C-alpha cells in the first residue's frame, strides 16, 4: 500500500515551493523531476559519487540520501542558483571554464556546490585542503588536476576580493 502523502514546503534558489509528495520520494528526484531543476545530476543513488550534491541551509548534502519531506522548512541551493540572473557566471564557474575543469560535465554541478560551501569556510584553502575537500566527489574524466587548478583560481579570485 502506498503511504500517506505529505506536504513539503521548501525554498529552492530563493523561490518558494509547496508540493504534496510520497514520503519515499528522494530529494534528488523531487528537485529534478518535480521542480524541473535538472542541473542536479544523479550518479549513484548511494551517496558515494557526489554528483547530486546541493546546499541545504548552505551546507553540502547528497540529495540522493535525503527524502523530500526532510527538506521541509529548509533552504536549498542548486547549480541553477549559482550564476547571476543576467547570466553572469559565478567565479567558481568562470574558473572551471578558464582551467578546463570539466569534460563531460556530469559531475560538475555537484563539485561546484561542494566547492562553493568549502570556499566559504576556507577562503585561503591550500592545494592539499582543496584535494581533501574534493575527495568526496568522483570525476571520471579529468583526473582532478584541472579541477584542483580551477578551485585554486576561484579561491584566489573569491578570497582575494574578500
Amino acid at each position, binding site marked *: 500500500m502506498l503511504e500517506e502523502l505529505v506536504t513539503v514546503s521548501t525554498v529552492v534558489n530563493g523561490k518558494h515551493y509547496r508540493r504534496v509528495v510520497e514520503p519515499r520520494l528522494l530529494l534528488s528526484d523531487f528537485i529534478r523531476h518535480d521542480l524541473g531543476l535538472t542541473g542536479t545530476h544523479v550518479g549513484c543513488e548511494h551517496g558515494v559519487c557526489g554528483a547530486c550534491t546541493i546546499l541545504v541551509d548552505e551546507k553540502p548534502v547528497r540529495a540522493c540520501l535525503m527524502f523530500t519531506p526532510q527538506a521541509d522548512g529548509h533552504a536549498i541551493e542548486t547549480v541553477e542558483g549559482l550564476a547571476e540572473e543576467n547570466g553572469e557566471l559565478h567565479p567558481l564557474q568562470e574558473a572551471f571554464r578558464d582551467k578546463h575543469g570539466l*569534460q563531460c560535465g556530469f559531475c560538475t554541478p555537484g563539485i561546484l556546490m561542494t566547492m562553493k560551501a568549502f570556499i566559504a569556510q576556507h577562503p585561503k584553502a591550500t592545494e592539499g585542503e582543496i584535494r581533501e575537500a574534493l575527495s*568526496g566527489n568522483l570525476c*571520471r*574524466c579529468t583526473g582532478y588536476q584541472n579541477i584542483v587548478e580551477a578551485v585554486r583560481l576561484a579561491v584566489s579570485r573569491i578570497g582575494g576580493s574578500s
Partner: protein
Amino acid sequence: MTAATNRYFGSPVLRNEDAPLLTGAAMFVDDIDFSDMLHVAFLRSPHAHARIEKIDTTATHDRDGVVAVFTADDLGAFWAPSPLVVPPPPIEDLVFNQRTQTPLARDVVRYVGEPVALVVAENRYLAEDALDRIVVDYDPLPVAAELEPSAQVDAPMVHDVRGNVAAEVRQVKGDYNLAKNNADVVIARRFLYEHGLAQPIETRGIVARWDTKAEHLSVWAATQTPTSLHGGLAQLMGLGSHQIRVVAPFVGGGFGSKLLMYYPEELMVPWAARQLGSSLKWIEDRSEHFVATSQERGQIHDAEIAVSQDGKILGLKDVFLHDNGAYNPYGLTVPINSQCAVLGPYVVPAYDSSFKAIFTNKPIVAPFRGAGRQHGVFVIERLLDIAARQLGIDRVEIRRRNLIPSDAFPYKNGIMFQDFTELQYDSGNYLPILERTLEIIGYESFVRDEQPILRAEGKCVGIGVVCYVEGTGIGPYEGAKVQVDPSGRVHVATGIGTQGQSHFTSFAQIAADLLGVAVDEVDVTTGDTDQFGWGAGTFASRGAVVAGNAVHEACSAVREKILNLAAEHFECSSQQLSIENGEVQTLDKPDQSITIGELAVLANPMRGAVKPGTEPGLQATRYFGPEAGTTASGAHAMIVEVDRETMMVKILKYVVVHDCGTPINPMVVEGQIHGGVAQGIGNAFYEKVMYDDAGQIMNATLADYLIPTSMDVPVIELDHIETPSTMNPLGIKGVGEAGAIPVAPAFAQAVEDALGIAEGGSEILEIPLSPNRLWELAEGGTQ
C-alpha cells in the same frame, strides 16, 4: 584564393560547451520530460546461469500505476539474437562462434543481471515495486565463472560450445622457434591482467517516444554511437530510416561502455514505446550498471621473449586466454588489440601469438578505454624489465636498443589490426620521446643519487619507465555537413557522439579558421541523426581524427563557395579575396566587404534563374575515410613511495611525454591524458571487480569498487612531441585512450623497484594490485 590562417587550430581555446554544462542548462538524457512519459524498470536474473521454467506476471496486473509488463513471450518476431556489431577480422583459420544476446532472456539466463522482463509504470518507483511481484521459476545450472576453468573441455557450457570457445585466433610473423634457438636468453612468465568497469558518472539511459499519427520514433540515448543505433533500430523494428531520429544529447562520459552493443534496454525501450504509443524512459541505476553494462575483464598470458646477450628482441611468443563474458556482440576487438599491443613500439622480428576467447557466465566484455591494449602493453613491458634484469642491462637501456628507429616509418608489423588492415605505424619518434621523459623525471639522478639517499633514510621509493604505442583514428569513415546561415553563424553537424571530448570546440576551431569567424560563432551538432545521419561513432580515439578531417574538408568546400560567390559579387578574382571577422574583403579595396551571412542569402535566391548545376546555400557535406589508422605513441614514468607497513603506494611524480601528431587544442589534449592516467591508476591499484564461484559480483557499489579520488591521482607533468600523422591532411593522431594504456606496467615496475626487486623481492606479474595483494607478494611468492 588566399589560404586560411591558423588562428585557432593548435591553440588552447576555451570551450564552447562549458557555459551550459556549468549552469545546469545542458540536456542529458534523464533531463528529458514529456507529459505522457512512462517509466521502465527491468527484472534481472539473480543467477549467473539458470533455465527459466516459468515467469508469472499476474500479480503485477492489479497494481496501481502499472501500465504494461513484457516478457520474451510478448515479443513475437522481435525476439531474436541481435546482430553482430563487429565481425571478426579476416584472419586465416580464425574460429569465431557468434552468440549474441536476445532482447529479453526466454529459456536460459547466462549472467547475473540479464533482463528477463520489463515493467512500464507511471513512475520509476511504481515500476520497481511491480518487479517484486513478478515470480520467475529458475532452475539453476552449473556456472562457468572463472576464466581458466571455464576453458576446460568438461567445463559447464555457457552456450552449446565445448570448452566455451568463443574464438580462436593465431597470428604469426617470422619464425619464433628459430629466434628462440638463436637467443642467448629466453624468459617465460605467466601474466594475469584484469581491466575493470568504465563507470562513467552518468549511467546509461534511453528515452523513446512513438508518435502514432506520424508513425515516427524519436530516441534520446546516452550513447557513443547514435548513427549505428539508428541503423540498428530501423533494421530490427522494420522501420524506414526516415521514421527514426536518434539523438545523443550531452552524454556524461562513455569510455566504451556506451557503444552500440544491442543492449537489451536500447532495444526494448523503443519497442515498448511503439507498442504503447507512448513516451518511455529508462535510466540505469548504479547497481544495474555493475551488472548490465559491458565491462573489460581478465586475460591470462603465457608469454616468452627471446633476446640476445645485448638485449635485442629476437622474438616473442604469447598464448593467452581472454574472458569474453556471456555473449560476443563486439567480436574480437579487445583481444585483437591485446595481441597487437604486445608488439609495442619495438622491433620484433618474430612473433607467434595465439589466443582463445572464452565464454563465461558474466556480463559482456567489450571495449573500455584502451580496449585490451593495457593487457598487451603489460606483457611486453614486464618481459623487457625481466630480460633487462637477467641480462644486467638497465631497464631504460633495453628499451632504447629495441625502439623502432625514426627512419623506419611507415613501419609494417606483419599482422592484422582490429580495423582489418595490416598493423602499420605511420610515423613516430619513439627514442626522443623516451629521452625527454627520462629528462623530465630525472631518471639518471634519481637512480644514481636520490634513491640511495632516500633508501638510507628508510624510505621505500622506486621508479618506473615504460613506452607504448596506440593505434588510433581508424576508419571506416565519418562525415560532416557545414553551412553558413544568414545570421553569419556557421553550423557544423557530424554523426559522431560526444561524451566530454570537447568536439563542440575542437571542430569549431577547424571551421573558424577556414571560414574566418570566431570559435563561438560556430555551432556544432554531434549525434543527432536528423542533422547528420552517417558515420560510425566516437570510440577508438577516432573522433577528432576522422570526423575532424571530415569537418576540415567540408569547411574547405564551403570556403571555396564563399570565395567564388564573393568574386562574382565583386567582379574580381577569388585570388584577391580574404575572409576575416565574418566578412569577405578584397585585398586591394579594404573598405569593400560583404559578410558571409549576406553571401548566404545571395546563395539562396528566391526568384530568377541560376546556372545549371548550382547548389544552393553556402553548404557542403564531405566524408573522410582514412586508408588505415594512425599510430600515436608516448612514454610514462613515475616515482612511487611504498609504505612497508600498510603497503599503500603514493605516487610522488608522474610524467607523460606523448605524440598525438598535430594537436587541435592542446588544453583538450592534456585533459584527455590527465583523465586517462587517472583511469590507469585505478586499473593498476584500486579497481577490481570481484566475482565468486557462482558468478555473483561481490562489490557492486562505488563504496566497494574504488574509483580514484582527488587524493589518489597526482599532478601529471606533460610534454608533447609532434610527429604529424601521414594518414590524414590535418596530421592528427588520436589521444583519447593514450593516458590509460601504459600506467599499470609503469606502476608495477616502480613498486617492484621500491620493494627491492634487485635485492630478491618478488616479481609483479599481475594487475590490479592492492595493498593486500602487495603484502602477499612481499611475504612470499608471486602466486
